[in-house]
């Protein structure tokens, strides 16, 4: 018997939990939580415990494939790579490098994301590289960078349990980041005050000192209202604001107009609750703000983030242990994919592509002239496909057909491509449409690193040999690059990591040896540096913290006579994103096998809908049919649909209107109508 334990990092959400893979005779048989890991301390969520199940699924892709006569057929790696190299070269010659777009991936390693953006810039010759961060936290990166100078979670996960107050807004933490919710519960046990603001009655609301269900998309008004009360009561940190921040007066002038009665009219939050929220946050320090997609996925996503920053600065909560503004990243390596430059405007470590010195630095490092025009975002790429400007799309570890808003619109765009290349571990809904399919190795079959939501760079270790004829993503990119005339001959992921660290100042002090089992948090500028637990100590990255005067704006689409309900979307606890990993995992799939819509009992009664009945939901973009789940989690007038289920995909309904700066779509708000579909169902238990 050959039995071994391999330490690695979970590849579901952005917590960065340490796992141990159990391997028996070369087969991956189980996942355990690492007992001494600084993040999860021997605990895992239901997804983490079952991490191995998607790896060994019989639905894994096991060979590269080419579409021949309309059907995907297995081919050799040489044929698949040669075909893509030839077709990309031909498209670049005919239409120019900007006719190609690449989607990097929040699922693959830092090393692989580094190579993806290097390939895009140095080999294709374009900055058209983006990834799903556009859809989750692009507004965070913009908003935090504008206010503080750095676009990442300011504090660490472990610090949350020592906060005196925790304000959670737009994060269903116990369902989506369970190992962070654990720190919230520990903080409560130590006496912390908990404020929860979410349009739904989420689980954490039950444990809150004050919980409110604000109207969808009204966050700026809510936050301005809290700050109005704080200023009126003189609860703000005057010396901190004076010494460490700027533009306070313009901000204060705007906030003065957000009286409690005005805010109640916009948000639906009772004035007494708003006052309690303000008082708890301002008078219990350090206070930590935690948020996720409920803040970011709006046409006002950047405004929402800036308002969170305003609140934290107003009460002196930035640059202190257990305080901060803490966006929870949704995917295992979405922080890393951003850090590595999987974005159309920046090289690794957010060095702008259009700054001459940066461009020259990377051109020298990579031995190629590089484009200096900012490329397409994902949002731009859809329109560019429709306009015939984008001819080829290379999608790595993403499933845009399920994850992008207004799915029917995207379907039309994808049909206009000359070449769709997908690189995945499963035949996702997007991969089904590919002209060429590269079969990739999973998290358990390769080495590398992920960077978690708290900026912690963690090792991923190979536990088993690749299943079938698959290659690690970095190997595929290196092969393709070499086939296109730009040699990439790396001995392995560590060599790529070392090259990356040499051009990425915030990772410059990291090596595989130093990362060990518990990783290092950036910035880590040199090999003597211990990493950084919280940012902006003594001084903000940008110098002074910048207050922004932010006015409330309505969402792009509000209910009306034709579409009288609000619709919001999100995750449920057992599934992850577009379901490609969790729906093939038996222990997760059994928890929830179908999509559903949550509807309030009053609305259900008015529409003669019983629990489990099929209902039709329709928006201006399209319609779906799915079972109703009658629930008090939603308020009257609000519906909720999880977006994991392809057969009734929530993103057929969602609005593609986007934030003008971050270009993040407004997944969280649109107007919808609902009607019985005439099919009686089984009540949900």
């Amino acid at each position, binding site marked *: *018997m050959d*039995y*071994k*334990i391999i330490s690695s990092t979970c590849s579901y959400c952005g917590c960065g939990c340490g796992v*141990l893979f*159990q391997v*028996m005779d070369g087969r991956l*048989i189980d996942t355990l939580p*690492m*007992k001494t890991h600084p993040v999860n301390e021997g605990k895992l969520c239901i997804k983490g415990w079952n991490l191995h199940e998607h790896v060994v699924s019989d639905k894994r892709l096991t060979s590269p494939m080419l579409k021949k006569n309309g059907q995907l057929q297995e081919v050799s790696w040489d044929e698949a790579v040669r075909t893509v190299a030839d077709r990309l070269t031909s498209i670049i010659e005919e239409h120019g490098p900007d006719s190609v777009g690449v989607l990097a991936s929040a699922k693959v390693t830092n090393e692989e994301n580094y190579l993806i953006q290097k390939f895009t810039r140095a080999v294709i010759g374009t900055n058209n590289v983006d990834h799903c961060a556009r859809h989750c936290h692009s507004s965070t990166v913009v908003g935090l960078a504008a206010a503080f100078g750095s676009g990442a979670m300011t504090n660490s996960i472990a610090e949350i349990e020592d906060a005196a107050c925790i304000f959670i807004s737009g994060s269903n933490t116990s369902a989506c980041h369970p190992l962070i919710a654990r720190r919230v519960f520990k903080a409560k046990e130590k006496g912390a005050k908990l404020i929860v603001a979410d349009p739904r009655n989420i689980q954490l609301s039950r444990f809150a000192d004050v919980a409110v269900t604000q109207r969808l998309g009204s966050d700026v008004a809510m936050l301005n209202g809290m700050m109005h009360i704080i200023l009126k009561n003189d609860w703000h940190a005057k010396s901190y604001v004076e010494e460490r921040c700027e533009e306070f007066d313009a901000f204060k002038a705007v906030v003065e107009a957000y009286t409690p009665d005005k805010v109640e009219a916009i948000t639906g939050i009772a004035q007494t609750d708003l006052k309690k929220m303000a008082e708890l946050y301002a008078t219990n320090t350090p206070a930590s703000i935690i948020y996720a997609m409920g803040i970011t996925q709006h046409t006002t996503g950047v405004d929402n983030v800036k308002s969170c920053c305003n609140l934290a600065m107003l009460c002196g909560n930035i640059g202190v242990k257990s305080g901060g503004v803490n966006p929870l990243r949704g995917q295992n390596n979405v922080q890393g994919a951003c850090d590595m430059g999987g974005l159309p405007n920046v090289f690794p470590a957010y060095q702008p592509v259009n700054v001459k010195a940066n461009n020259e630095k990377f051109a020298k490092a990579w031995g190629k002239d590089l484009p200096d025009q900012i490329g397409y975002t994902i949002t731009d790429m859809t329109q560019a496909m429709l306009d015939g400007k984008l001819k080829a799309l290379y999608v790595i570890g993403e499933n845009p057909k399920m994850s992008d808003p207004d799915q029917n619109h995207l379907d039309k765009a994808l049909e206009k491509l000359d070449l769709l290349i997908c690189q995945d571990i499963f035949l996702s809904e997007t991969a089904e449409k590919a002209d060429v399919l590269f079969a990739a190795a999973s998290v358990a079959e390769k080495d590398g690193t992920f960077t978690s939501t708290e900026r912690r760079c963690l090792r991923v270790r190979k536990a088993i040999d690749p299943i079938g004829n698959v290659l690690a993503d970095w190997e595929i990119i290196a092969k393709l690059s070499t086939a296109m005339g730009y040699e990439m001959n790396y001995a392995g992921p560590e060599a790529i990591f070392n090259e990356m660290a040499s051009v990425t100042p915030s990772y410059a002090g990291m090596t595989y040896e130093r990362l060990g089992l518990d990783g290092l948090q950036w910035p880590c500028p040199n090999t003597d540096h211990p990493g950084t637990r919280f940012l902006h100590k003594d001084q903000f990255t940008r110098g002074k913290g910048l207050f922004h005067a932010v006015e409330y704006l309505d969402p792009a689409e509000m209910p009306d006579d034709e579409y009288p309900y609000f619709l919001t979307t999100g995750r449920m606890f057992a599934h992850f994103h577009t379901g490609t990993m969790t729906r093939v995992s038996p222990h997760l799939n059994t928890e929830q096998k179908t999509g559903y819509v949550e509807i309030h009992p009053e609305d259900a009664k008015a529409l003669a809908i019983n629990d489990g009945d099929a209902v039709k939901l329709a928006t201006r973009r399209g319609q779906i049919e799915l079972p109703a789940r009658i629930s008090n989690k939603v308020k009257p007038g609000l519906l909720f649909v999880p977006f994991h289920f392809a057969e009734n995909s929530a993103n057929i309904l969602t609005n593609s209107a986007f934030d003008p700066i971050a270009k993040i779509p407004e997944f969280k708000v649109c107007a919808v109508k609902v009607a019985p579909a005439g099919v009686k169902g089984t009540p949900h238990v």
Partner: protein
Amino acid sequence: MRQQVKAWLEQGTVNILLGYKLGQGYPLPCCFTKENLDEAAELIAGRARYFLI
């Protein structure tokens, strides 16, 4: 303890021993076998407890 375990494995008293060794500063489960006798020198005792398989 280490010498005892090594002797048991060497003599075939036990075929495998599930215990712990340090991996980059952390106690991690390890399957000690006759094929990797040298690893027995890394066996540690501590408070970490894992249930396996």
